[in-house]
């Protein structure tokens, strides 16, 4: 059940795994959202992006050197 005060999901954060080389910038820029596994590849803790976080997430997407991190609108 969703709480009535829940913020609407604006977009979904995904990784194109064929592009990702595990540079780790997403982890540095979004430490609460993205962890790293033992090989350095990102682990997405949550993929739903609300409007309040959008700017910050877009910054990380733009910074990804492999163009692997991407946002899709719901």
């Amino acid at each position, binding site marked *: 059940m969703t709480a009535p005060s829940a913020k609407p999901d604006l977009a979904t954060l995904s990784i194109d795994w064929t592009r990702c080389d595990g540079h780790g910038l997403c982890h540095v820029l979004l430490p609460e959202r993205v962890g790293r*596994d033992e090989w350095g590849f990102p682990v997405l803790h949550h993929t739903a992006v609300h409007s309040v976080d959008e700017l910050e997430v877009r910054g990380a997407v733009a910074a990804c050197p492999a163009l692997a991190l991407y946002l899709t609108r719901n």
Partner: protein
Amino acid sequence: MTTLLNRPAKTPLDTTAWSIGSPRLLAGLADAETLDARGHHAAHGPLPIADLDRVLAYLDASGLAGRGGAGFPLAAKLRSLPRGGARRVIVNGTESEPASRKDRVLLRRTPQLVLDGALAVAAAIGARDITVAVHAERTAQVVRAAAGQRSDGRRIGVRVVPGGFVAGEARAVVRALNGGPAIPTGRRTPPTADGDLVANVETFAQLAVLLRIGPHRFAETGTVTEPGTTLLTVGGAVSRPGVVEIPLGTPLGIVLAAAGAAPDPQAVVVGGYHGGWLAPIPQIRLSRHGVASAGGTLGAGVVLVVDNATCALGELARVTAWLAAESAKQCGPCRFGLPALAADVAALACGHPAVAPALDHARAVNGRGACAHPDGAARFVTSGLHLLHEETDRHLASGGCGRPVLGRLPIGAAS
């Protein structure tokens, strides 16, 4: 319940094909190695003309799920095609699951039935081209000859695409047909978005039967939610390996008895190497729902028997190493995670305490790839470790179980 075992007297090609109950897809194959156009007509009768509305109505009434492994309903695929934008019908005959033979049997022995289904879909959605994608040149030759025998066969192209486990995934097949590498794309866009209707060989054959007999007769066998028959490939420790057509919902015990399975086996692997290990409970119903209720997945219908003569943990380790090698190595978690997982399972088989790291690595790779290969490998290993926990203890206590690894689970594709 009357169980008829219809087995051909001789063993044609590289496999046997038989049925429990009366055969539908395999009809007419008891006396013929390959049904030519005339034999096909005699066994199945003419294919009625059907527009898209009728095809969809029949599919909805029978709930025909795709037979390539994922079980996606064919009707949903047809509906998700862009309006007026259907380009191509692609018959996925790559059958990359090492133990599976059912699609090869259909294409080599009753190719006209598969082509009927593909042509019916092409007519219904207005697609101009039909491409049959296979891995083996030998299969391609049979299908080309079959297309040459029919007046409407000129639109059918047959293409041999590169082999490999992940090369059989629908997006990898389309990519290979379009001149690219035979590996899945990075973004999970379904082929229908580009107007390509891709479905498994057996799905087209099932449709060809459904269009002939209608949803009412189609549902005379099978279960209420999953009417009709399905093809299995039965192997491992059985005396009669081969492709078996069964009514959906047939109990596992009946199939194992009919296939001459070793008595009291340790396990069955159902659904192939993206499927799972199950205790050989005779009452498990072989339908998508039945196998799911038992904690597994029917997948593309592979059933492999692991008897007591072989080291089951060793079998698990051998297949896990193969799965790691079959990674396309284009996604980091799969490229590094599957070899780590394989090393864990190999260590376990040698008596090292590696259950926790193996389960951790399985969890770590799950869902983190361009295709479902890491997910499937994780499912295979996790289910194996759960089922074989007593074996694991035994290996820990004494460094092994003293049994050789007999290779009951085949790896590497045969043509």
